[in-house]
């Protein structure tokens, strides 16, 4: 990818700028589509029809929303810490956008082909916590601060199951670089890590229950990491108004939303890359290649985005103690068992 651009443009700085901006080119239209998808899916799950007047079946509604948010007055509370208040949404978005750097969108494109890929993602997405805390603190509003504190507690506790379930996949694939992880799973859906990876059949069958469990746990912990229902305690409309983004309006609010949807895809992308073969075609050589790879990656990612929306509109919000119970007493012990079992199977 970079070599091709380098040949075309001949300027390495420009090439890196373009390479860094490419995920944004994907995230912006994706966010518009997902906002609409979320509204439509939620409406149809509740036997409604959602937007019907802006364009055919309301397809232009996200654009209308953006235009409305653009022209909205950008208010900052008088008692807010203005610098932090202004900085917070960008920091939150930066945290999730930086995560996209190590995501392999196709065999030809990965923002940064570093060997510490997943580790980097886990580390850099924690930056969002600082942004959220900053937003909650700077708002100078008790609900915002509550939301921010909850968010910090939640993300810190769910880092553990996330990291451990990533570790299970990393143990099988033997690499932290998501591009290598994806290459490892090439050659059809039976080679995906969720089905035990491309290992001998007996090993595969032995691994299968543990990879399935850790796959589910990664998905659950991922939902919790991005603060989506049923783990949306930081936002908890009914208790905390909107949590850390209560005081935000206009484009700052829109950027929080963009960050949320970017995070939703990031979680899906990590799950897909680690456990479901990333950009590899599920049918082996059939429909594979860089362009098809991008298609498969986005298709799998969008399926998990849909799953997250589906779960959001099915399950009610957890209580704080239930949230912590789930993380520390259920997900983490299960993952320890998975790690030991996978390690044992791989070594023996």
């Amino acid at each position, binding site marked *: 990818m970079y070599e091709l651009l380098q040949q075309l443009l001949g300027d390495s700085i420009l090439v890196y700028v373009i390479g860094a901006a490419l995920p944004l080119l994907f995230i912006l239209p994706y966010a518009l589509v997902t906002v609409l998808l979320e509204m439509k899916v939620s409406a*149809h799950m509740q036997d*409604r029809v959602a937007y019907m007047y802006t364009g055919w079946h309301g397809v232009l509604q996200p654009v209308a929303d953006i235009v409305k948010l653009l022209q909205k007055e950008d208010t900052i509370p008088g008692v807010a810490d203005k610098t932090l208040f202004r900085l917070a949404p960008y920091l939150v978005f930066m945290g999730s956008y930086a995560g996209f750097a190590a995501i392999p969108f196709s065999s030809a494109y990965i923002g940064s082909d570093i060997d510490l890929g997943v580790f980097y993602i886990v580390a850099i997405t924690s930056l969002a916590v600082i942004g959220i805390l900053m937003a909650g603190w700077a708002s100078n509003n008790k609900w915002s601060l509550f939301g921010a504190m909850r968010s910090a507690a939640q993300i810190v506790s769910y880092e553990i199951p996330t990291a451990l379930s990533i570790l299970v996949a990393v143990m099988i694939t033997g690499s932290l670089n998501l591009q290598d992880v994806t290459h490892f799973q090439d050659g059809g859906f039976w080679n995906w890590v969720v089905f035990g990876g491309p290992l001998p059949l007996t090993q595969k069958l032995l691994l299968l229950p543990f990879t399935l469990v850790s796959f589910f746990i990664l998905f659950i912990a991922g939902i919790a990491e991005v603060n989506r229902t049923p783990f949306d305690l930081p936002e908890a409309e009914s208790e905390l108004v909107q949590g850390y983004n209560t005081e935000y309006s206009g484009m700052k609010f829109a950027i929080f939303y963009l960050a949320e949807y970017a995070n939703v895809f990031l979680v899906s992308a990590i799950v897909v890359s680690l456990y479901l073969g990333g950009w590899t075609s599920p049918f082996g050589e059939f429909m594979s290649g860089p362009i098809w790879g991008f298609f498969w990656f986005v298709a799998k990612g969008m399926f998990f985005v849909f799953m997250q929306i589906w779960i959001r509109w*099915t399950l009610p919000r957890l209580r704080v103690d239930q949230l912590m119970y789930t993380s520390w007493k259920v997900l983490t012990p299960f993952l320890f068992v998975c790690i030991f079992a996978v390690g044992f199977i791989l070594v023996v």
Partner: protein
Amino acid sequence: MTEVRQYFGNVWMAIYTAMVGMRRTFRHLFTPAVTIQYPDVKLKLPERARNRLYVNIDDCIGCDQCAMACPVDCITIETIKSTPDQDLGTTSTGQKKRLHVPKFDIDIAKCCYCGLCVYPCPTECIMMTDVYEFSEFDRKNLIYHYSRMTPEEIDVAKEKLKKAEEEAAAKKAAAAAAAKAAPPKQEGTSSQQPDSTKPS
């Protein structure tokens, strides 16, 4: 041991109930919507729905019973008696109209849609309709004027009544004077005189 069983039971229960819920929502994803596209499609209201009041002023005899029945005093009626030479016609129920109704105002903003004004109306001219979309930008526009009399007509009616009353008063005075002149004899005529001034 029971604690261990309960722990795994809880985990299983959490997964199972989530699956049940997700199956239910997935099924609803494909059920047709139960809502309607409101401004384009409207539900038919029940036959006896109480919404905006309507007054068929042609049938109104100005009896003021609806205004008296109204618990929030949102109906204001003014009437002018008609003189014997005027024929105001009859209502559709066959009653003779005896009063001009220069003012029949309903402040629909005050109306509580109780429908109590509908029942006393002798000619069934005030009724509840199924119209419910009548929001206005100005509150004053919510005062509905049902009377169709123009100011000129009102003036004419008032003038006529005044004249008739003056004539009657003059007659009465004359009769009284005559009665004073010859007290016992003309009792019958004097008792008839006020009747003639009444709009009959």
